[in-house]
């Protein structure tokens, strides 16, 4: 008998190690993004991420959800699926998926910010992908039958128990 424990995978003789995971699916509407943050908070606390790491992840995951809400479904109904997976106890991999339309390029070049721009040049918008990249350790975007953004955060060494 082998049981997965919240701190990570357990292997036994008979079964392959599998990842632990939690999945949350919500309607692609602005009022559900905070529910994603709440679940992220509950899970990341269990995994002993620090307060600051959790705040970083909250913003990054919300940015990915905001994009699904704003850009994916062009006003039609749709859902966002958020999958939280961890195999090792110190790395959380969050994938935000929609089944919408995405005409942008999946190549994540380093996005631009307001740095070095004058007040006349700066514009609202376009900071979402930048913030995901700045706040997480790794970001990937996959466009195929919708968009899947994978966000990876490693727990800092100081937080390990």
């Amino acid at each position, binding site marked *: 008998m082998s049981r997965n424990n919240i701190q990570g995978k357990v292997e036994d003789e008979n079964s392959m190690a599998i990842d632990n995971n939690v999945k949350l699916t919500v309607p692609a509407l*602005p009022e559900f993004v905070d529910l994603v943050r709440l679940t992220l908070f509950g899970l990341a606390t269990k995994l002993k991420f620090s307060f600051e790491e959790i705040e970083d992840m909250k913003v990054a995951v*919300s940015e990915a959800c*905001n994009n699904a809400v*704003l850009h994916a479904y062009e006003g039609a109904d749709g859902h966002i699926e958020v999958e939280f997976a961890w195999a090792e106890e110190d790395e959380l991999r969050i994938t935000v998926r929609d089944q919408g339309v995405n005409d942008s390029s999946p190549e994540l070049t380093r996005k631009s910010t*307001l740095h070095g721009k004058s*007040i006349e040049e700066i514009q*609202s918008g376009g*900071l979402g992908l930048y913030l995901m990249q700045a706040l997480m350790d790794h970001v990937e975007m996959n466009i195929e039958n919708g968009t899947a953004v994978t966000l990876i955060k490693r727990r800092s060494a100081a937080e390990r128990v």
Partner: protein
Amino acid sequence: MKTDKLSFRTENKEGLTVIHLSGELDLEVASQMRTAMEPLVELTDRKLVLNMRDLKYIDSTGIGILIGIVKARHSRQAPFAVEDVSDHIRKLFDMTGISRFLASAH
């Protein structure tokens, strides 16, 4: 104006309007925030300050709204600033580069 999620309290001082934000400023309340700020942006004879002591959450949606206020106040040649910004929100402001445009309040 008040919802469960984001609320505003106005403090009028000599030549200065301070808006105390509390709660979460995200996509759900973005249009409510824009609506609340619109008339305040036009008060060009007073300095406008957003107090963020009780603001628990902001993301690029909220930062986008701040950029709009920065530009509107600049084109009206009227002063704007934020104050009591938490470390986490300060980090987001520094990362995105909006800090430069949010003159400290006092």
